[in-house]
């Protein structure tokens, strides 16, 4: 039972100090979670602390491998709009 930080992490440090179990550590190329320490905040907080401050959609997965913050949930940019904008940029 542990969350996982994946490669879309931008190394902003925000999650590291808010983890109640000190399970998050700085690493290359991005921050990582020590699965032995991570408690998914159980007993401490009703919500994942790391995923509640993380600004990057999809960067933290729950123990089922599902993004805790899915596309569009944080920035408010609808995923199809983002895809459209990226396609537009790449066509140049």
């Amino acid at each position, binding site marked *: 039972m542990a969350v996982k930080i994946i490669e879309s992490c*931008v*190394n*902003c*440090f*925000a999650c590291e*100090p*808010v983890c109640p179990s000190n399970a998050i550590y700085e690493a290359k190329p991005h921050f990582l979670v020590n699965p032995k320490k991570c408690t998914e905040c159980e007993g401490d*907080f009703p*919500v994942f*602390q790391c995923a*509640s*401050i993380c*600004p*990057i959609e999809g960067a933290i997965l729950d123990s089922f491998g599902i993004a805790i913050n899915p596309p569009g949930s*944080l*920035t*408010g*940019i609808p995923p199809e*709009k*983002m895809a459209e*904008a990226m396609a*537009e*940029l790449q066509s*140049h």
Partner: protein
Amino acid sequence: MQLPVLNNTPSHAEHEAKGGCEASSCGTSENQMDSLPDSIREKVQNHPCYSEDAHHYFARMHVAVAPACNIQCHYCNRKYDCSNESRPGVVSEVLTPDQAVKKTMAVAANIPQMTVLGIAGPGDPLANPERTFETFRRLSLEAPDIKLCVSTNGLALPESVEELAKHNIDHVTITINCVDPEIGAKIYPWIFWNNKRIKGVKGAKILIAQQQKGLEMLIAKGILVKVNSVMIPGVNDQHLAEVSRVVKAKGAFLHNVMPLISEPEHGTFYGVMGQRGPTPDELQDLQDSCSGDMNMMRHCRQCRADAVGMLGEDRGDEFTLDKIEVMEIDYEAAMEKRKVIHLAIQAEMDSKRLEKAEKAQQQKQKPRLTTRPVLMAVATSGQGVINLHFGHAKEFLIYEASPDGVRFISHRKADQYCAGDTSCGDGETTLQVTIRALAGCEAVLCSKVGYEPWEMLEAAGIAPNGEHAMEPIEEAVLAVYKEMATAGKLDAKPEAIRANA
């Protein structure tokens, strides 16, 4: 303690009767500075971001020690790593406090005009209290001749005020985009507060309350506060005059209204959703309408969170981690040298200020012109004189000349934010882009202009002028204005130019 605020001007009715240009905000901002109490003048006179005058002479730097943020703003993308972009929130490398101290001392020794060290991100400095305060703690001991300042979104400000006061940080910038939570919800999608992510109006309401409380606490401690606001057309543009009034009433010293930057390629909410930034005209109109209530900053360059050098330039490449690693710095010796240079700059500034005041006085005694105002662009690399080739200018300072005198309006970038790839964009040459950036100006003053740009400028209705090289900017602008008046060019209102600017 309520700080005195500049531009303590007459009522609104009187303001409007004079056509939106009351005496104290015309002329130069140096004159405004003159009306400050000595204690405040002392604090801002060598701070390039707090004094328009000082930014021609003194440099600043930011160290990027604070990557974490506790809120999301719709104009920000937290993927901050890009070396080709120049805008807030962007950095090349995040530093540890130790690296930041080393870099600051290396820059201070090599760029003696550097007087100010700021921490401005790329996240929120106060959301990284340990990294931020460790940097401040060490610098106040090891480099006591450097002014320290910090900018923040304000969410964690109230709990940080004690610590800020302890480190002798006497300049704090709070970004306040609204005082109305409904508007806030359109700018801030969420905040992290009391161990929860709080979205929408509820989050914005907490953020606004914290910002206002923090502002009041700083003023009570006698700390100078500048307020930054991002102007977002259709979102908070109508609301910022109210923000200006509120923060002034609480004692903020300076208000800096900046244009939204929202290129789609930055991947921000506003960029992707097609929210436009304000035109130079819209920005100037808002700054002018706020200036009746508040001292406005107009020379902000919206620099990177790791910028180094004079405002408008970035010498960060000279001070990368691998380069500072091998620099030997004798800071005691550097401090001696810095002191001598600072005194010399101060003496030059004082004498120029005096000269300017005398000229303005003489001007007042001459018969008043009745001509229309004109915008002019100026190429300068500092020292308050016209000393840059047209083709070498990466930005132009925009001045307005009118019967009331000469006042600084803004700067405009000559090359766009992303200078990494000259082939991108719609195929315009750099020269065409530059000329477009000068829209609305009727003259451009520089030390020299080449033949090709000369013709293109003239064709665009912008008179090139290289006759005032090395002259003080305000004097030169006034001289050109008078020439234009004598030549009968200023009789009709240039509505067409204004509308297209």
